[in-house]
């Protein structure tokens, strides 16, 4: 081969490559590929798949690929890293509230304040995806959740128990369940995050006694260790452990074991967020009718109410190359059709935050039990992480310690205050 002929061959090859890229470029223009990043977990993936399917049916020119990421703090890290390096998917699902504030929404997320669908989004949700500059940067994905206690209705019926409205009644029920030879309270420290529920779901009771706790806490004035009401959450965990109410393998069991046990009646109570209703419906549909739900009781029956978690948000990073298509998808999720698709895939787990969305008539009892707290005369309030930007990252390890009898409640609360201080300093809040 001479030099000239080699050059010609190269030129021909590159011309061919150019032609090919031009062709594929044209093909891309006809069908847009979006990526959609969600936390892994069977129920979440099923909902995402149904949403994508319905959306693609209505928009044949847009194709969406679902990517999954780990949940928990590992997932937080991944989201932050991908945002910081400009490699975030076109649309992603992530927490609202304090974790939303920690990803620097003003710098990284597309401003969605003026999207037409925002008119139908409830103000309580908008507030938890609002950046410090007052712009709304997210759309609701999923239903409002309650943090409280699932109970097995079969066991309650068998032992003739009634739903408790005070902590003392709850403990009395537990005694009877234990006396009947059953597991009273399911704990699953194999997934450490599940250990936080007794503390986090107690926040309605804290705020019922001190409505200003959140702002004092943010301002470095109120502490878990020194505020009697706030300390109760840790104490409740300790009391339940010391009374021997937990399942034998509580240290190693995982969240998936927890939902199996509560639905199959292997345990009577499981403190959890109500998003688990979707998981129970998907994994144990034959037992979903056995699972009921109540708010974590406080010390006063008159102040019985539900601690509410706002659902995740959908966000669009500013680095997306497909802004219009991404906005179309977000608008779809935040519409009535979007709610219906979610209900089809995972069943209804609670009230949606989009006006006009309705729940089907045949919702599971765990959802029915939750609705009175939202109805007239019912009481509910947001969890602390939606009222304050500070949530200490080591809470789940501390609650595992308190719930395993390694550390007493007061010590655990003091340690958590230390952890909170570190987080507040990292956020650069005034007064720390």
């Amino acid at each position, binding site marked *: 081969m001479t030099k000239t002929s080699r050059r010609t061959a190269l030129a021909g090859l590159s011309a061919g490559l150019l032609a090919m890229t031009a062709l594929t470029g044209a093909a891309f223009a006809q069908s847009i590929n979006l990526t959609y990043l969600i936390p892994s977990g069977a129920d979440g993936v099923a909902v995402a798949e149904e949403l994508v399917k319905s959306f693609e049916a209505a928009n044949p020119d847009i194709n969406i690929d679902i990517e999954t990421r780990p949940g928990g*703090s*590992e997932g*937080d*890290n991944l989201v*932050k*890293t991908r*945002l*910081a390096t400009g490699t975030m998917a076109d649309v992603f699902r992530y927490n609202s509230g304090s974790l939303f504030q*920690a990803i*620097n929404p003003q*710098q*990284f997320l597309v401003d969605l304040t003026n999207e037409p669908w925002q008119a139908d989004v409830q103000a309580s949700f908008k507030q938890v995806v609002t950046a410090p500059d007052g712009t709304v940067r997210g759309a609701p994905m999923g239903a409002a959740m309650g943090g409280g206690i699932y109970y097995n209705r079969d066991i309650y019926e068998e032992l003739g128990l009634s739903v408790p409205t005070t902590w003392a009644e709850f403990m009395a029920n537990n005694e009877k369940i234990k006396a009947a030879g059953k597991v009273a309270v399911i704990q699953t*420290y194999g997934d*450490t995050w599940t250990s936080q529920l007794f503390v986090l779901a107690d926040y309605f009771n804290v705020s019922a006694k001190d409505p200003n706790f959140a702002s004092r806490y943010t301002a470095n004035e109120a502490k878990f260790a020194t505020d009697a009401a706030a300390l109760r959450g840790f104490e409740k965990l300790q009391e339940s452990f010391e009374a021997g109410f937990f399942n*034998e*393998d509580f*240290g*190693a069991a995982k969240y998936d074991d927890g939902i199996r046990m509560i639905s199959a009646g292997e345990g009577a109570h499981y403190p959890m967020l109500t998003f688990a209703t979707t998981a129970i419906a998907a994994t144990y549909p034959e037992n979903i009718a056995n699972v009921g739900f109540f708010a974590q009781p406080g010390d006063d029956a008159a102040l019985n109410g539900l601690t509410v978690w706002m659902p995740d948000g959908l966000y669009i990073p500013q680095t997306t190359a497909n802004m219009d298509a991404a906005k179309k998808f977000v608008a779809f999720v935040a519409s009535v059709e979007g709610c219906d698709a979610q209900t089809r895939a995972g069943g209804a787990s609670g009230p949606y935050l989009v006006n006009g969305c309705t729940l089907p008539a045949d919702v599971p009892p765990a959802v029915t039990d939750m609705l009175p707290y939202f109805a007239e005369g019912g009481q509910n309030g947001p969890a602390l992480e939606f009222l304050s930007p500070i949530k200490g*990252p*080591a809470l789940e*390890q*501390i609650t*595992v*310690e308190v719930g*395993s009898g*390694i*550390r007493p409640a007061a010590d655990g609360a003091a*340690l958590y205050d*230390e952890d909170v201080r*570190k*987080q507040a*300093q*990292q956020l*650069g809040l005034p007064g720390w």
Partner: protein
Amino acid sequence: MTQAGTAELATPVPTLKRRSPYPGWFFLPAAIIYGVLFLVPTVASLYFSLTRWTLFNSTFIGFDNFAQFLREPFLIKGLINTVLYAVITSSLKVILGLLLAVLLTSQVAARGYLRSVVFFPVLVSTVGVGITFTVLMHPTNGMINEGLALLGIKGPGWLTNPNLALFSVALVDVWKGVGLATVIYIAGIVAIPKDYYEAARIDGATKLQNFFYVTLPLCRPATVTVITLSFIGGLRTFDLIWAMTKGGPGFASDTVASVIYKQYQSGFYGLSTAGNVVLFVLIAVLVVPLTMLLNRKEGHQ
């Protein structure tokens, strides 16, 4: 012949004084890779350890991170756990590795097969081993405790008992790493000249005397290698602990590396970088004297 030999030896000397035929540019690729992947991150991490860093922006805060890191409630426990873990794993690897190597260099049946069986766990992914053993060590449904139950023994919560978790992980680490120690010892034992054993036999040494007075002293270099490797590995240990307990229950099996990782995971990037600087210093402080000590003794032999 001798003349030719000296002539050949003499010729390279002047070339040393001449300029090398290879230009210095040949170092460039290696220098760039080393600089970009090692020097730049190292210097950058020294800087970021002095800042409060959110990945998005950083503020210089002096030595606050180091003060905060040294105040971490579980740092002391993590430090103790780290050293404990390194000592347990490296000493068990030395003892078991040596015994296995003696066994596998003697005339046992299926020697080749047994050697590969012992080495096999080294090849398996650490995280895979961790997850497998987490399942086996489950307090009620795990195969280990179910086996013990058949014998009428109630097995402990291997990974859920705060006093036991670290030791359970260390045992798994030994199971996984002992193969490498064995291979190093086999090489060391095979290299011992047969003459010593012959002389010992003529003197009427027993097998035990053979082991203590011939094998053990003569495979000191292997011992030094095994101790250094497994001790450093133990100090830096992270993957197995993270796969099995995530430092738990609570903080019971935290090591320095897992404390650092948790800071990183929580978004305290500056703080975790400061922790890495501390870990680097700690390893240097422990391992440099250890290596010097072991090597000096070797020199005296």
